[in-house]
């Protein structure tokens, strides 16, 4: 009897793939650090009204250009507005712009890239030449053109930043799809009767995730910066609404006398990007069963 008993260590329990990935992610301290920061930022964005000490837009001309103090933790800007409160409210806009713009770019670009890589031939040629045309226009210029045509608003800003990043994603996805497509297991899937859609979603995309994840986490950062640039020239977030990029560029002219005005929004952007990169790296490793343990 005892011989037939199965040694428990040998039987790996069947967990849902999501739990499996999360368990592996939890083993990476850097990824957890990144996740924690992102949680804090999201928390700030959601509960901005409750946690910010002052109104982000109320001017207080008695307290202009104040350096950090007990009253204003991160100081005040040229209109006496509390920088901490503006950063907390700004997280709302910046995170939204970053994630949604990348989401737009990733879904559109990813689909176009996957289709053109998978089917190749004429369709591939048409899609990629259109992407080349878009790529030949500088990203910021393209975003300006789009937002100028649609009119300045938060939604249009996200669309503009998103569309201007589409070609980058299309190219990356196409590249990795091309390399995966010629693998024998794709042919094996076809022999089993899988449809094209299933092959793309189940076999090609999961195997070409690594570069896409890295690019997306970096992309959130550049989307935030891009949106900031648009806000700076008046096509994005309209003043006095707080936005990190706009705060950064607003403080630029006072940088010699009051560096704290640019320092803190800059730090906020940097921290977000760093956290996203850590998380992205961890996620890339956690999604790869080969790197288990």
């Amino acid at each position: 009897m005892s011989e037939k008993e199965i040694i428990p260590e040998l039987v790996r329990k069947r967990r849902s793939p999501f739990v499996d990935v999360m368990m592996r992610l939890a083993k990476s301290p850097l990824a957890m650090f990144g996740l924690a920061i992102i949680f804090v930022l999201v928390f700030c964005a959601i509960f901005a009204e409750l946690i910010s000490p002052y109104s982000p837009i109320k001017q207080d001309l008695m307290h202009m250009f104040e350096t950090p103090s007990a009253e204003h933790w991160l100081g005040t800007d040229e209109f006496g507005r509390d920088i901490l409160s503006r950063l907390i409210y700004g997280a709302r806009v910046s995170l939204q712009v970053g994630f949604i713009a990348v989401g737009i770019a990733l879904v559109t670009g990813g689909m176009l890239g996957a289709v053109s890589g998978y089917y190749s031939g004429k369709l591939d040629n048409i899609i990629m030449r259109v992407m080349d045309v878009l790529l030949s226009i500088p990203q910021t210029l393209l975003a300006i053109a789009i937002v100028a045509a649609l009119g300045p608003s938060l939604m249009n800003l996200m669309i503009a930043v998103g569309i201007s990043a589409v070609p980058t994603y299309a190219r990356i996805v196409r590249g990795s799809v091309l390399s995966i497509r010629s693998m024998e297991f794709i042919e094996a899937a076809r022999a089993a009767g899988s449809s094209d859609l299933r092959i793309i979603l189940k076999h090609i995309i999961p195997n070409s995730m690594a570069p896409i994840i890295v690019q997306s986490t970096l992309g959130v950062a550049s989307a935030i910066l891009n949106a900031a640039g648009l806000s700076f020239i008046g096509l994005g977030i309209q003043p006095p609404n707080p936005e990190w990029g706009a705060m950064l560029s607003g403080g630029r002219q006072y940088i010699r006398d009051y560096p704290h005005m640019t320092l803190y929004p800059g730090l906020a952007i940097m921290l977000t990007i760093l956290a996203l990169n850590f998380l992205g790296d961890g996620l890339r490793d956690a999604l790869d069963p080969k790197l288990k343990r």
Partner: protein
Amino acid sequence: MSEEYIRVENLKKYFATKRGMLHAVDDVSFTIKKGETLGLVGESGCGKSTLGRCLIRLLDSTSGKVLLKNDNDDGYIDITKASPREMKALRKRVQIVFQDPYSCLNPRLSVWELIAEPLIVNNVHSDKNEMRKRVRSLMETVGLAERLENSYPHELDGGRRQRIGIARSLALNPEFIVLDEPVSALDVCIQAQILNLLNDLQREFSYTYVFISHNLSVVRHVSDRIAVMYLGQIVELSEYKELFSDPLHPYTQALLSAIPLAKLDVQRERIILEGDVPSPIEPPNACRFAGRCRYAKDICRTTPPALKEILPGHFTACHFAKEQKQ
């Protein structure tokens, strides 16, 4: 056993290249009997894998027919012209086992998911428990321990991976399986295991196999009949014993003389072929082997020989096969 099951008629597969048409499979006709193993041998690049893929339409052929006998009546269905819907049904009847067990399994899917895939995409089981049972029984059939079901392919050795590949191809209860060099990537003792497994499966489920290989001793071990390919064409097709004892085509003779013998005192004539395989791109309208053949005469360089039945059940494509016989 002797019932005709698949008839291939004038099958051609050309690939367009920059330098012209590459004749990978050029006008091939043969039949496969129900329940037999047809060995397909030839050197690298002679078109055997392409032929195998055309047989189950993983590649669309340029012209010709692959006729598969229907289950219920005496009619045939042409795989090369099946509609997408017909093809979906045919996928359950014809399957393939790939050469390289390292690249033919998606590295992100577990053993369980890999074997369940054909069942899922073809909606075989609506009930999850039923599917689980089916996957377990498939794993048992091919000799995979149940504890491996949540492992990933990279954690397993080549033999176990090839077992996964075999389980996948068996999942849909096919009738006909193309084995595309299923053991050439494995080391010798695992080769034997897999070959025996394939043999046992054939005995149990009466599968019809096409066994592609460049290894003559392996092919001899498993095949009922053997087809020898040279540059996209079948040059000789015969029952396996006769092919080895009495080869008629000069290329087959050269191939057989190259099999190493594990005997020191036996001397035999070795036929050394001169030159290289000619390019398969736009080949001349002649016997393709003529340039390397020691019997070649003028007619060989002007007229391509047809595959003719020289002895009962023994086909060869050579102008001088009969003369040689005498």
